[in-house]
């Protein structure tokens, strides 16, 4: 695994503090969406279908920082929309780094080289560009519905690495993904020099145009088993090994829907990053008034039955690591041996 020791320690000490305090509903990663506007319109994305006045809106830096303080999570992921289109992205990231939050700026990287050349960002151990890469050139350009984006992303990654930035990739896998080509993709990303890769199966957003190509649970496990059964030592994953084992069907976890709370121009999204069933005005209201028992596989909620997405299950995997001897042992073993 490729998460730096300082980041691992920050997360571990945070989780242990929450457990000592007896907090059940604590967040791990804040999903901060400053805007919905994007320079792509990917077929699997349900985040950008809004009227123009909504797409033109964005949060202020002050609103973002207030949400960060309210939430208290040690990591902040900035998806969107495309965060590099957010006019205040530089000041926002600088403020988050000053708050010692580990920031994952999730970008399609079309604008990355340009923003780096403009001097919008400074390298920091707290900042990682998490570049959206859904596979090799053909698969990626197909997933984002535009030719040439893979090459632009690679150019952005090279530029960021050259300038000393941390770079990871995030990959969403859909039905039809080839395990062998994904393994070639892992090799390519390692050759590029990224710090680590993040993987997740897609979720079938009700508003996404492409409803046919989302993975169902059994297919997900089959695909991840084939891809990761004998992982190469050089493949680095910037995520919990127990989550990857869960995707392979080797761990049985329940969803932690409050683990990655989402804040955007509408407020705190209920109940999770993927489902939009309403909004709370404060984080406290979100945690205290959402009926958490109605979500997750065990609840019987239809919308949750096939979901294995990182935002619900990676927090469970992290909790498992620090909540049981077996979880800690499995995590250490996978980290040291590279076996999943």
């Amino acid at each position, binding site marked *: 695994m490729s998460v730096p020791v300082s980041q691992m320690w920050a997360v571990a000490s945070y989780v242990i503090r929450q457990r000592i305090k007896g907090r059940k509903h604590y967040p791990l990663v804040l999903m901060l969406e400053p805007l919905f506007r*994007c*320079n*792509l*319109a*990917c*077929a699997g994305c*349900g985040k*950008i*279908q*809004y*009227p123009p*006045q*909504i797409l*033109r*809106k964005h949060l202020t830096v002050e609103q973002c920082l207030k949400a960060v303080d309210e939430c208290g999570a040690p990591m902040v992921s900035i998806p969107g929309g495309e965060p590099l289109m957010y006019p205040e992205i530089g000041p926002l990231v600088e403020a988050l780094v000053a708050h010692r939050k580990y920031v994952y700026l999730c970008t399609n990287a079309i604008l990355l080289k340009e923003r780096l050349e403009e001097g919008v960002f400074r390298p920091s151990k707290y900042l990682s560009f998490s570049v959206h890469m859904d596979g090799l050139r053909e698969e990626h*350009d197909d997933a984002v*519905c*535009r*030719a*040439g984006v893979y090459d632009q992303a690679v150019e952005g990654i090279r530029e960021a690495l050259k300038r000393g930035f941390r770079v990871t990739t995030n990959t969403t896998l859909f039905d039809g993904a080839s395990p062998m080509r994904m393994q070639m993709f892992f090799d390519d990303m390692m050759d590029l020099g990224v710090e680590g890769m993040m993987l997740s199966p897609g979720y079938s957003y009700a*508003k996404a*145009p*492409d*409803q*046919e*190509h989302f993975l169902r649970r059994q297919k997900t496990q089959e695909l991840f088993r084939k891809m990761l059964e004998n992982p190469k030592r050089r493949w680095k994953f910037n995520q919990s090994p127990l989550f990857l084992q869960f995707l392979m069907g080797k761990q049985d976890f329940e969803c932690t829907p409050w683990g990655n709370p989402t804040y955007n121009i*509408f*407020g705190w999204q209920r109940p999770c990053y993927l489902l939009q069933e*309403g*909004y709370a005005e404060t984080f406290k209201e979100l945690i205290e008034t959402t009926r958490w028992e109605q979500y997750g596989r065990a609840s019987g909620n239809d919308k949750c039955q096939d979901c294995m997405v990182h935002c619900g299950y990676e927090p469970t995997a992290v909790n498992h690591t620090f909540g049981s001897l077996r979880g800690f042992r499995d995590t250490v073993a996978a980290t040291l041996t590279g076996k999943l």
Partner: protein
Amino acid sequence: MSGEDAPASPRASRLEGWDPVIGDEVPLEDVIDRAFDYRGDVTLVRHDGSEVVGYLFNRNAEARPPFVRMFDCAGDGPFTIRYAEIRTIRFTGKDTAAGKSYEAWLRRKAERPPAEAASEPAHGA
């Protein structure tokens, strides 16, 4: 589409243009839920005849009193409006989630020369 033609299921693509008449068969709470699910602007009509045109992004039927929240069509807001003030909601804006199927994009892509087709976004970004 009139109130009598109320869609049987809240499929967003069928809601565009819906002008429901609130009553026993089409309860206000149901229309509000559909408006919340709708990815286009709506026109909210108050009992006093005044209207708010914009995007309805939240509703809370369990709050006391129950309310909806909207940004108007200029993006101003959010405005909070109590259920008790609402006469009806018309689905007047374009449904931004409708008519953009993956299949349609694949068809368009197949009909054009490779370079041009591949660079066409799935739905007009």
